[in-house]
């Protein structure tokens, strides 16, 4: 069968190779390297902290947070499953993965929420942004692993950057959606009392969109977790590496153990963030009360919680 390719072919792969290797990498490598810096700082700090916190303290604190936000069942699950992770000797790997995930989600939030707000305010910006988000969500991560390695090198931080690219779209989309869905009459009331655009955002739009934004955060978190193994391909450690190594050696046991660790972390974080988003839907979701809700239990129950936990299992 004759086809157009008989007459003419486009050397797309060559063009891209030329573009990335001969132009992007030599010219922008230092710039991309510099972008790594804040990620490295946050990751190192967080990982050092999580590895330093004794297992028992961390377990109790996270269980207490789960108890405050998502209720007793999730708290119990957190307690039991974290002990289980320690028993299968994956605690340090789990903490590394957790540090990676939290770092990735943190940067997704820092980038995604302002971008989402900007998209909600400008239809033109959204029109430009939407195809970019579509590409980010549909392109297989393996495609951008190579240029990321070329630009950032291998290791934890490039892994996190790949994770950010993969996990960013939901929080942007849902921030945009949440802000656009704030009731029109409330916006009108805000205008009628003379709010500035900033006051409108801070006093009305953002608090009312918070539930939807939290749903976006939850989605971003889940996507970030699903990138753990893929990120291990370019040198990220943690549970992903356990799975990846198990895969390489056909070691079913190790791969499964790492997988279970990832699932446990996913369930705990999912339940807690979901509960944060859904909570107080009756009493209203003020930004501060949600944030306070996050931090309040973390401070106190370190002391109280062991007693509560102690008298329960009986």
């Amino acid at each position, binding site marked *: 069968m004759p086809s157009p390719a008989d007459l003419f072919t486009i050397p797309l792969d060559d063009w891209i190779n030329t573009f990335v290797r001969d132009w992007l990498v030599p010219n922008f490598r230092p710039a991309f390297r510099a972008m790594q810096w804040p990620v490295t700082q946050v990751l190192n700090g967080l990982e050092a902290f999580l590895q330093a916190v004794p297992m028992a303290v961390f377990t109790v604190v996270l269980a207490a947070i789960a108890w405050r936000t998502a209720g007793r069942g999730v708290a119990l699950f957190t307690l039991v499953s974290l002990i289980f992770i320690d028993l299968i000797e994956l605690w340090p790997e789990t903490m590394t993965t957790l540090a990676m995930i939290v770092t990735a989600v943190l940067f997704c939030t820092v980038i995604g929420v302002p971008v989402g707000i900007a998209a909600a305010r400008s239809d033109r910006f959204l029109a430009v942004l939407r195809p970019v988000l579509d590409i980010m969500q549909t392109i297989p991560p393996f495609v951008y692993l190579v240029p990321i390695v070329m630009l950032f090198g291998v290791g934890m931080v490039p892994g996190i950057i790949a994770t950010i690219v993969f996990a960013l779209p939901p929080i942007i989309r849902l921030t945009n959606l949440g802000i656009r869905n704030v*009731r029109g*009459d*409330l916006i*009108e*009331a805000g*205008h*009628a*009392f*003379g*709010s*500035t655009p900033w*006051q409108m955002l801070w*006093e*009305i739009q953002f*608090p*009312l969109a918070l539930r939807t934004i939290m749903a976006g955060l939850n989605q971003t978190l889940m996507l970030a977790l699903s990138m753990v193994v893929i990120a291990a391909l370019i040198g990220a450690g943690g549970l992903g590496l356990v799975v990846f190594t198990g895969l390489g050696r056909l070691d079913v046991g190790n791969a499964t153990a790492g997988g279970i660790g990832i699932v446990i972390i996913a369930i705990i974080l999912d339940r807690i963030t979901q509960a944060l988003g859904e909570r107080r839907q*009756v*009493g*209203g*979701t*003020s930004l501060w009360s949600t944030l306070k809700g996050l931090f309040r239990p973390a401070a106190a129950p370190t002391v109280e919680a062991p007693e509560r936990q102690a008298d329960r299992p009986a």
Partner: protein
Amino acid sequence: MFVPDAMSSKIIAKNVYKIFGEQPETALEMLRQGRSKDEILRETGMTVGVRDTSFTVEEAQIFVVMGLSGSGKSTLVRMINGLIPPTAGEILIDGDDVAAADAQKLRQIRRDKVAMVFQHFALFPHKTVADNVAYGLKIKGMKAAERRQRAEQALAQVGLEAYADSYPEELSGGMQQRVGLARGLAAEPEILLMDEPFSALDPLIRRDMQEELLELQRSMKKTIVFITHDLNEALILGDQIAIMKDGRFVQVGTAEEIVGAPADDYVAAFTQDIDRSRVFTAGSVAQPAEPVELGKDTVAVALERMERLGRDALYVVDGKRIAGAVAYRDLAPLAREDGSLESALITDYPKATRTTQLNELYPLAQSGLPIALVSRRGALEGVVAPQDVFGKLAGTDEPPTEPASA
């Protein structure tokens, strides 16, 4: 030009237009050529919200704009505080043109002068009642303690001080709208825009709220622009009432003018079902009293006057004071005996004031005597004959000016 009475005119709108669409200029031109709203929609796809509307609201007055949905009344009220910018025309608040104000100036006007109350309350669900009420104050940068105090004062005005720390959805509809009203009042604006504030409430609560608003207005004396689709509400509240249809005013006037002399069939159709006894006052059916004077006029004079006026009773005054009433059937036997007026004097006579509503006259009309209209100082200002009350209610008191008013 400085108009002498501009001091008391709080809001002046001059030839205001609002057209929603891509090229408002085109539609504006078509309107000026006399094309109709429907024609413009059909040919250009643009909607005429408000066309060529001018009005003046005096200070401390309640100006009610009444119209059905789609008549442009909500658009009109939003142009007063610039939520919707007019396509053409001027809207002056204390002489400042809102239509020409920039964002900064507009915010200033909204913060300091014009507050708004919304149909569906538009309370912020994530803030407590007190924080809702204090919103305008917070926006202005007032300190937390001070605005809390002001919010509590405003809540006390509407009787909800106990609910300061509740959330809006814990309150009933009527209470929520009281919060909306308190939010409007907290910033102490000079002008209150109320966009169908009571339409979403049950009829009984609506009646309460109307009375409460009038009660509040007696002490606060705000300039109020009130939007409604309910003519009864308009008649109860409005000092001036504008009837709006297809983006323009068809009639502007007091309640008595609207019901008494509807400008066209459209207004007449609305006024048909109105309880006229609540609109008209005793003053509207008053006749000159033509009293007889005690100790001066004789029985014969009184009888002669009754016959001339075709009445069966007259009031008797003693100087400025009302002494009582005399009835024809009592006086007639006395005429031959040449008795005095005093012996037939009825001192238990019905009385009212000029502003008494007709529905309050019904029990007074049972005595059979004309009702005396008494001034605040006790002087006789006129009389109301019972049959005139019913004539007014039936709308047959004067020859109909429009054939359609039947």
